[in-house]
């Protein structure tokens, strides 16, 4: 059974370029292949690579990552809503109609961005043992992006999830409907302006956990 298993637990990392150099190389190859569709990238030393592309280059970026970088493994796809929650963090029912908190400025994360909604996908190369996260901005008026099913068939369910949770439309998706929520459900729960009703109705007792212990002055 030796051919079925592998015992090479230590890789010869010294001989190959360091991971961060390889990440730089990945970013450069993606930038080459996408041209104007490439926005920027961000590397966290020794850990990860974030890339932001234009919305129109979304599927091209996935294709390039699969074919040029060898990212055959489709990890996941989702979206992120950068709007600061109008309800604050606790969402407790101290008052019936809370004043909307002063709007914090929206701050996008690694690799930047301009819009409230961003798409995020995570791909992984099982040969290089490195992954990358690709983001794309979605303009507020037009929350739609091309489907990735043609590149990674596994994107199907993830896109359905993003559709119901964030209300993002995927062009050319053959079967875009709710995956978890009932069909008649209204709203997009993971948007920050969708209230968590359970918390609005009854304060959560667990909130005491974040109070200081007796005798603790400061953190």
């Amino acid at each position, binding site marked *: 059974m030796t051919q*079925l*298993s*592998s*015992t090479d*637990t*230590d*890789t010869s990392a010294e001989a190959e370029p360091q991971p961060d150099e390889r990440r730089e190389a990945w970013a450069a190859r993606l930038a080459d292949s996408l041209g104007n569709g490439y926005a920027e990238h961000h590397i966290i030393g020794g*850990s*990860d690579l*974030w890339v932001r592309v234009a919305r129109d280059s979304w599927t091209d970026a996935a294709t390039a990552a699969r074919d040029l970088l060898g990212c*055959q*493994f*489709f*990890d*996941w796809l*989702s979206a*992120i*809503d950068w709007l600061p*929650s109008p309800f604050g*963090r*606790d*969402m407790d029912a101290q008052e019936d109609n809370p004043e909307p908190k002063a709007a914090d400025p929206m*701050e996008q*994360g*690694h690799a930047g961005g301009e819009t409230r909604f961003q798409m*995020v996908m*995570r791909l992984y190369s*099982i040969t290089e*043992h490195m*992954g990358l*996260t690709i983001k794309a901005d979605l303009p507020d008026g037009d929350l739609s992006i091309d489907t990735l099913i043609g590149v*990674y*068939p*596994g994107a*199907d*369910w993830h896109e359905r999830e993003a559709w119901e*949770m964030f209300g993002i439309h995927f062009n050319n998706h053959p079967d875009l409907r*709710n*995956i*978890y*929520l*009932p069909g008649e459900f209204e709203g997009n*729960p*993971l948007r*920050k302006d*969708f209230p*968590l009703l359970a*918390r609005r109705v009854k304060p*959560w007792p*667990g909130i005491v*956990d*974040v109070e*200081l*212990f007796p005798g*603790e002055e400061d*953190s």
Partner: protein
Amino acid sequence: MTAVGTDQRQQLAYVATQAADARLNVEIETEGMTLNIGPQHPATHGTLRLVARLDGEQVVEAEPIMGYLHRGYEKLADVRTYPQVTTLINRIDWLGSFANEVPFILAAEQLMEVEAPPRAAWIRTILFELSRLANISLFLGDMGMQLGAITPVFFAFRDREFVLNQIEAVTGGRFHPNFDRIGGLKDDLPKGWIDETRGVMVKMRNFCDELEDLLLGNEIFEARTRGVGVIPADVALSYGLSGANLRASGVDWDMRRDNPCGLVHDQLDWKVWTHPDGDSFARYWVRLQETREATHMIEQMLDGLPGGPVMAKVPVIIKVPAGEAYVATENPLGVMGYYVVSKGDLGPFRVKIRSASFNNISVTPWVMRGVYVPDVITILASLYFILGDIDR
């Protein structure tokens, strides 16, 4: 005689034509039938509903319907603090709960730039692998039950109990330990635990031997699993299958060996098992080998356990600096990752949970096209999912 003979021949010919007509009619007039499997079928490990459109005994199309157990953890995590989130994510894969906490804590630690002390990292890895035993041992028995052999599932429940006892002795919780903390662990190991665990590892290996005797050589088991539900490597990768399901398709990739972020698997001597076939049998075989491998890993870790504290210096009130991190580990069911976005608050701004079963089950419409009805159960059982891990 001749007349009778002629009659007989005529009769036989008549019967033959009738039978041929009947066959023809059956083939022509069969209407598609829709079969609902679940939500409460034992093969679904929870409440998965599978709608299968049948043509005779063959599945034309199968579609899993989820959401019966959707608890909205990603939304709930928005309003909780970091230590409170582990309580939620314990319930994702409820058979190997401790393993759920690990990638989340590692992601938070990465953002805070704290590192658990060596002893904590080792105990974490021990509990991580014990969760794997608790999780996969149930699969090993349950798969037998799905195929009609009751005995393995009794063995599984019997021996899994020893593992749960060990987890309970450390954490106080059999199913939901909630033991991992940012910066280390809640407590150290209790006295005498290491020797007891060594005994349990021997029991678990005996359990694997028993199942190997019971099932792997069994003619019925082989007939029902060999060549059933074959998933080629490229399909498995493009659907994001992970864990034993991917390794059973011949892909030699294990996060424990290739991305050992924070855990100590890279300091142990073990190997990654793969199988080239990609069928249900291969998935069972790989998991059986992995269970054995996990017992060896735990024994090595018990031998080499370093001393020292189990908790790093972290503030009482945990505020995680702004940033983003994605950490994934090789959990019992496959790759599980948390994408954590922090804005410097008491709690995360956004948590995306990448659970293994969601991707593993998304391949079912592809793999079930054209299989026979009994094979549906085999495939569902061999892909091995936990509903909490799909619905989150």
